[in-house]
């Protein structure tokens, strides 16, 4: 059953098309010593937009996140943030990236984890509760990491990630293992964050339902060595899921 899907906050504001996109990628090729893994010719993400990066395992999704985040990889091409080209070292300051296992330093409570992130990023943490509230994690502030459930870890990690007010938030498989109620709440928080801070949010997933449900737009990665974006599908489109399913099927066949 297909029907028009809109995100709770509607489509990204129309004037975002005229405004400079927060994230702008041109001719980006990234890989390791073994060779290039992913190639992105041209993609833009506007402020307030949530983009899903969809593809099967090994399609270079995590590599794409890493290179945008400024991890030192073999890469060429340009990544612009708010219109200005940024070197990988500069991108580390402007971009936040979460890790699949949602690690939290286990010898510190959640508040300590936030403080540590702020300390290393070199920013002042004025109101930790404001950050935690965004992800419905205020009640977790003094909890020890080993006492948190999967969903709670996710929220705590997300709070930790946005401590430095990043321009871009990258999430590696954030919805894996969460139940749908929690997923909905987390997704809403991500949209809220993107809107409030005029930031771009990208998340990687292999689940096409999650991609369409929780993003404004999905970019499908396909092909091999390097993989590329074969298509971008607007989540609000009716038939988005079917279209994506078809594209993924073609990928599996090849």
């Amino acid at each position, binding site marked *: 059953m297909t029907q028009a899907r809109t995100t709770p906050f509607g489509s990204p504001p129309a004037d975002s098309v005229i405004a400079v996109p927060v994230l702008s990628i041109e001719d980006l090729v990234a890989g390791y010593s073994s060779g290039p893994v992913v190639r992105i010719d041209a993609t833009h993400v506007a402020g307030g937009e949530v983009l899903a990066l969809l593809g099967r395992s090994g399609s270079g999704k995590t590599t794409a996140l890493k290179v945008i985040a400024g991890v030192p990889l073999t890469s060429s091409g340009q990544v612009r943030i708010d219109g200005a080209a940024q070197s990988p070292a500069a991108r580390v300051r402007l971009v936040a990236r979460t890790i699949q296992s949602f690690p939290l330093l286990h*010898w*510190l*409570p959640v508040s*300590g984890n936030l403080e540590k992130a702020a300390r290393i990023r070199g920013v002042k943490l004025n109101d930790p509760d404001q950050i935690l509230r965004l992800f419905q994690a205020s009640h977790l502030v003094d909890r020890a990491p080993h006492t948190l459930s999967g969903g709670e870890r996710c929220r705590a990690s997300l709070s930790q990630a946005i401590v430095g007010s990043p321009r871009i938030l990258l999430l590696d498989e954030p919805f894996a293992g969460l139940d749908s109620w929690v997923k909905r709440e987390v997704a809403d928080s991500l949209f809220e964050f993107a809107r409030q801070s005029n930031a771009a949010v990208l998340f990687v997933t292999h689940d096409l339902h999650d991609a369409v449900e929780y993003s404004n737009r999905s970019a499908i990665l396909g092909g091999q060595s390097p993989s590329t974006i074969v298509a971008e599908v607007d989540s609000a489109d009716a038939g988005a899921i079917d279209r994506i399913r078809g594209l993924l099927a073609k990928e599996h066949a090849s």
Partner: protein
Amino acid sequence: MVSMTRILFSVTLIAILLACLPFGCEKKEAKPAPAPSAAKSLDSLKPVEILIDWQAEPTYLGVYYAKSLGLYKDLGLDVTVVQGRGANQAAAAVAAGTYKIATASGGATVLGRNDGKELVSLGVIYPHVSTVVYGLAKSGIKEPKDLVGKKIGIYPGSITKNEFDAFVKFTNIAVKPDDIVSLSGADIPLLKAGKLDAVLHYSEMSPVLVSLDNEVSPVDGKRVFELHVADYGVSCYGLNVITSRATYQAEGELVKKIAAAIFEGYRRGCADPERAVAAFKVDFPQMDAEYIRQSWTKVCKTVDGNYGMQTKEGWQATIDMYKSLGLLKADVKPEEVMP
């Protein structure tokens, strides 16, 4: 939660600081019991260390008795007697200048000189070594030839090993390498347990202990047999006092006076053994008084009135013995080890 890292850092720091504090108590090198004649204040005395080449035993009683008599204090010295771990090592330490003066043996002096160590003997205490091949009397060993086929224990790093080699050569007994057992710990339990038939030791040490041991049954009134290697042609100098050529040149008067005090300690101790034994017992209360007495008697017998005398002939005999064992690669002359 306070930062755990911070807590651990500070605890570690405090622990390190605390560990460094007792460093100041190094001066506890003094014996637990005070020497009987310690009346004068020690502030004006010059501190000096005399190294004895083994643990404190009645063998070195003369060194300690000189301190009890105040002979070092009369020289303006505050002497600490340091216990070493072997004559060769003591010779090395003296040659390196770590100690100004030490006891060693004639063999260690000659071997050390052969090795290039510039050693000078300030005088000899034992004109002959007190080394014996000893064991329980009930083993029936009475002569060197009785040792053939028996298990003999030797301390590998000790100078007694060389003396045993000479002993075997001079007595011409057919001792096989298999019969020699290398020892590193206590010899008496092994003898008593029957694991050894004989051990190379010093007449005034283990043999005295065994002869006082009630657990050992005597044979004809004796608990031990002793074969003195000196009786069988092993004619080398034993316990002596050494210094290095460098120290002798720089502080010759000082070390000569200390050596003289040591020899005087032996002389007076052998002249008045009861008092000497009593003084030693005060310094080392856990040692058995009868053991000290009998051991000291044997020491004085070995010293045989030789309080510091040394001759070129005596050194030549020592050198010849070690040469005959093939242990000298250079030709050492008596003048090289005498002042």
